[in-house]
């Protein structure tokens, strides 16, 4: 080894007193602990808060009664509100929030585009078209199924368009998504324009802005299965996502089939998003904001970023949904309005604070 290379002192900076790695680990531990405690408190708050009077004590009693299979002292109405209205809604919000955050992270990494979010590939407009066709035209399938297939149709269109005449590079994929998105939005507008009447407008708006009102244990089942079968494998694909950091060519030289991996990752994220959107409507901002905010805490390594983003996404959507329920009681806001109102300023703060968050 040439000594002139090793002993170059000109650019040598003295090591900081606290090694950066140790500081990073400490911050990460505190951050994850904070998120976990906040999520636990928020879950409890979301059960207690609302027009029907359920106290923290009632929650404890009912939980114990359910676990031990004994009778609780709660009224039948209280039991029903807690277990059939609020609980499924809370669990759905958490799975949807976690899933959208994971999808956003995967989409940003695999397209190397900081603006990528779960709806990047025309998914939202595809799902919207499916949903609006059911609400307005009265297709004889259920709304979640129509939304799911709408988003898959849009995804297929985007991936075919991106792959025609060249490999599906990040920029081709994003541009194809924009084109398909515009097409499906136009078709949605056309359907609304031709056939919508006054009553259906609010229903359509509610769906387009996202809402967790009316979620049941069935919604929980859909969201949970989608998250466990697709979201969890995505969280475990961190090594592959990391390899994209220096672009496709470097990814290939590190042994990753860049184009194939991207199509698989985007496809899986899209199916997951489609399933989540089918129960919640298209909720914006979570998939865009949460990955950026989480990166400030974890750094860019996806092995840490993905699980923490899932946790933060669950917390944020649950918080937003609780606000949506009670802010204008007795009327409910679509939760997408709340995520945007919370998200836009948070995003602005991120931009101002970190010159390289994007």
């Amino acid at each position: 080894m040439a000594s002139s290379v090793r002993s170059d002192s000109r650019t040598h900076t003295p090591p900081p007193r606290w090694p950066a790695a140790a500081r990073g680990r400490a911050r990460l531990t505190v951050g994850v602990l904070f998120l976990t405690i906040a999520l636990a408190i928020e879950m409890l708050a979301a059960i207690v808060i609302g027009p029907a009077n359920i106290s923290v004590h009632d929650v404890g009693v009912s939980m114990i009664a359910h676990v031990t299979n004994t009778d609780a002292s709660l009224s039948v109405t209280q039991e029903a509100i807690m277990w059939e209205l609020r609980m499924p809604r809370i669990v759905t919000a958490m799975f949807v929030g976690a899933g959208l955050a994971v999808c956003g992270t995967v989409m940003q990494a695999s397209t190397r585009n900081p603006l990528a979010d779960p709806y990047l590939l025309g998914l939202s407009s595809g799902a919207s078209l499916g949903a609006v066709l059911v609400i307005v035209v009265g297709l004889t399938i259920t709304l979640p199924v129509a939304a799911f297939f709408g988003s898959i149709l849009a995804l297929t269109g985007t991936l075919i368009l991106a792959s025609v005449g060249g490999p599906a590079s990040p920029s081709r994929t994003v541009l194809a998504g924009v084109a398909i998105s515009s097409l499906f939005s136009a078709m949605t507008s056309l359907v609304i324009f031709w056939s919508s009447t006054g009553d259906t407008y609010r229903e359509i708006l509610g769906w387009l802005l996202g809402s967790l009102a009316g979620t049941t244990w069935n919604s929980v089942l859909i969201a949970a299965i989608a998250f466990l079968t697709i979201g969890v494998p995505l969280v475990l694909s961190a090594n592959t996502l990391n390899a994209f950091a220096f672009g496709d060519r470097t990814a290939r030289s590190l042994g990753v089939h860049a184009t194939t991996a991207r199509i698989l990752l985007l496809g899986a994220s899209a199916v997951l998003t489609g399933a989540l959107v089918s129960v919640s409507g298209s909720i914006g901002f979570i998939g865009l904001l949460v990955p950026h905010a989480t990166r400030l805490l974890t750094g860019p390594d996806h092995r840490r970023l993905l699980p923490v983003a899932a946790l933060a996404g669950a917390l944020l959507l649950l918080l937003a949904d609780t606000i949506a329920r009670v802010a204008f009681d007795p009327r409910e806001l679509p939760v997408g309005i709340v995520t945007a109102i919370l998200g836009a300023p948070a995003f602005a703060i991120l931009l101002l604070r970190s010159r390289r968050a994007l």
Partner: protein
Amino acid sequence: MTAELSVEGLSFHRDGRSIIEDVTFTAPPGAITALIGPNAAGKSTLLQLIAHLDAPTRGQVYLGDKNLTALTQRDRAKAVAFIDQHSATDQPLTVQETVMLGRTPHLGRLTAPSVDDRQVVKDALERTGAQYLSHRDFTELSGGERQRVLLARALAQQPILLLLDEPTNHLDPRAQLQTLALLRALASEGLAVITALHDINLAALHADRVIAIADGRIMAAGEVAAVLTPALISSLYDVDVQALSSKDGTVFSYSLSSPLKD
């Protein structure tokens, strides 16, 4: 482990156009082989074909007795490291995280880096003299420091063949020489090193062997002293060339014979 690279009849066509045509050469372990030639001669493409980042239209690439073209992408990445000319990231990766990327082909898809992986990363940083940069942000480094870290990332792959595309571009003279000194150190550890170089004099003074290509074909190949002649350089770049002897060896000065001619 060391092995000789042998490239046999490599051709690459894109959109019916021939980019690389019937290229055959060998590159021994323990030596630096410089790839020279004018812009658009096919230097980058040739390196990418050897690393199989593009699939060749015809031809084979052997590393020792292993047929690289027949390996999986992942197994190839355990034997061949490639440092791209435009290697940049928008992620705020630390140097350590950047070098850990070199372990990608060795990690399972789902597994976290082991103690061994961390040790390999540490060794790679030491071998390139970049350990003092470990916790710095890659994107904030100088050009020379980046090149060192990228070399450490390549070493973390534990390759037997190292390919570099213009590693001295945009570097100041000191950093250029440091990069080449580092390549020399790695070659003497047994790596086969092939690097595209724009600067003829860097090739003349620091490489063992030279492969000159133009229009996707080999013009000359062999030991530096035998291949790098004023006549070859003159025909390769269409310039007037004069050989000068310096204390380090023969260098070349070049000038335009007719400045206004294209």
